[in-house]
């Protein structure tokens, strides 16, 4: 079992003003709460990742994905529910969890004054590695991520994409079973993004490491074997990109019109249609797009400014699950 979450509940307390030097001690561990307002971040969230697969975690802002990431990486203490990561209990054995996972944070956590080699060696020592084992692992992860020519370069002289690769290399040093990444593409150009994900896929294939990546990009999620979509602290949908698209089935028709509200009201009661209005666009999920278009052009042809039809994409799956347009 890679990850097992059962009935996770998390509630951020308000009161930043009352504790200017840090909050009173919560249950355990080193915790940082960034939300200033009281908010229910996770509600009865349960899911399991059994085999070492490559999983994407998607969700709009405030869906609870960062909270979940923090709980799984033991940065945030559990409030309610239970979670195990690589068969270790997050609440009872956080050190055990930390030994089993490699973490790549959204923001850089490298020491820019040090060389790539120093960064890697120092990280290895934090995980209790030394001697020839550390030496061999540094060589191995650099080979995997193509960092060998950069080993003795100061990290601050590297490009954003290379720095990310150093962070991934560092996360892999202690041979973790699970690699957790929090929006690893933040700040990378398209080429850097492609490159990073090609490396992640190769690592997953060659080293057999499980990957759980919080992401803001649908094309990245598309590369994963499984997608979890969170919405309002709950699991909105879960499956492979292929299955999720097939589950939605049929077609998506979008009608651009100045009478969006009326048209949506007209279509909503019809059986088999899933109708939503987004600004000037009426968006309809339907089993037969072509026949719907024929009907609409006949009955409300004069309202239509533009018509689009497509097979459901991941963005549509996302919309269906969360009711929010996907905005990277």
């Amino acid at each position: 079992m890679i990850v097992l979450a059962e009935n996770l509940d998390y509630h951020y307390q308000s009161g930043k003003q009352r504790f200017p030097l840090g909050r009173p001690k919560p249950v355990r561990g080193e915790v940082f709460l960034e939300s200033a307002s009281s908010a229910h971040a996770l509600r009865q969230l349960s899911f399991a990742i059994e085999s070492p697969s490559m999983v994407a975690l998607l969700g709009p802002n405030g869906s609870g994905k960062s909270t979940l990431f923090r709980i799984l990486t033991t940065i945030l203490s559990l409030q309610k529910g239970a979670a195990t990561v690589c068969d270790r209990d997050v609440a009872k054995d956080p050190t055990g969890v930390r030994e089993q996972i490699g973490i790549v944070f959204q923001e850089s956590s490298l020491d820019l004054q040090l060389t790539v080699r120093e960064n890697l060696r120092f990280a290895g020592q934090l995980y209790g590695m030394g001697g020839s084992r550390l030496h061999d692992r540094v060589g191995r992860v650099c080979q995997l991520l193509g960092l060998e020519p950069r080993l003795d370069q100061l990290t601050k002289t590297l490009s954003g994409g290379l720095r990310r690769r150093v962070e991934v290399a560092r996360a892999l040093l202690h041979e973790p079973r699970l690699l957790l990444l929090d929006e690893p593409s933040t700040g990378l150009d398209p080429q850097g993004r492609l490159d990073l994900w090609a490396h992640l896929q190769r690592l997953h294939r060659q080293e057999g490491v499980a990957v759980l990546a919080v992401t803001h990009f649908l094309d990245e999620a598309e590369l994963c074997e499984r997608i979890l979509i969170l919405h309002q602290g709950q699991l909105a949908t879960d499956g492979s990109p292929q299955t999720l698209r097939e589950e939605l089935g049929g077609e998506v028709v979008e009608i651009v019109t100045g009478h969006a509200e009326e048209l949506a009201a007209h279509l909503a009661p019809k059986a088999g249609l899933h109708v939503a209005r987004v600004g000037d666009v009426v968006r309809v999920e339907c089993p037969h797009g072509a026949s719907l278009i024929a009907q609409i052009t006949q009955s409300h042809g004069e309202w239509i400014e533009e018509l689009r039809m497509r097979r459901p994409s991941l963005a549509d799956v996302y919309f269906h699950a969360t009711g929010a347009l996907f905005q990277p």
Partner: protein
Amino acid sequence: MKRYWLPSSMLLYRELLRFWRDKARVMGFAGAPFMFWIVVGSGYSDLARFLPGALVLTVMFSAIFSSMSLIDDRREGFLRSVLASPAPRLSIVLGKVGGGALLAALQTFAFLAVATLGGTLYPDANYAAIVGLIFLIALSFTAAGFVIAWLVPSTQGFHAIINLLFVPLWMVSGAVFRYADASFWVQWLMLANPVTYAHQALAQFLGINTNSNVPVELSVSLVAVGLVALLFAAAKVIRRPAERNL
């Protein structure tokens, strides 16, 4: 044991490495004793009496500024990766505090060497004891700085707290005026001030007649107790949430 030793030694070594790569810091480190030497060399009759106070001031500021590296580590994100690792929290404290204290102690040794060049000033000084004591004081101040840097999110806040707490502690440690010359209530403050004992012990090891009835062993023990308490506080505080640590 390896679980403790490896992270600690790494953090300590990193502290030295970062110092060495920051040429401005190295210049300040090497230049300050030299400036001091120019002043001292020009002649100062009461130097013998004021040196312990100058040493305490040097070790205090060096140690506290070293511990500011924690704020940099937090800002640069490095601290995040340290805290998310399985490294024992105590080993993190010992590595960070040890590295900062080592730099502070070395700086103070440089001062001491310049001030006592030739050895004529303090014929009765016990230099081995002084070196050990300076290490002890440096560790204490660095641990105190660690606790403050952990709790205070900004460099500005850190400076404010340091000025508020440590400058007064130094002023009423006997470094500026003697115990006997102080008013009644200031004498009580001096007795309650841990820095007084650090200053006292340094003076005694230098062989200065301090007219004190506190035995040097007691002074050193009190400094050591202070260090243990501060390390304990640091180990405690690192388990607590602090703004912007992660």
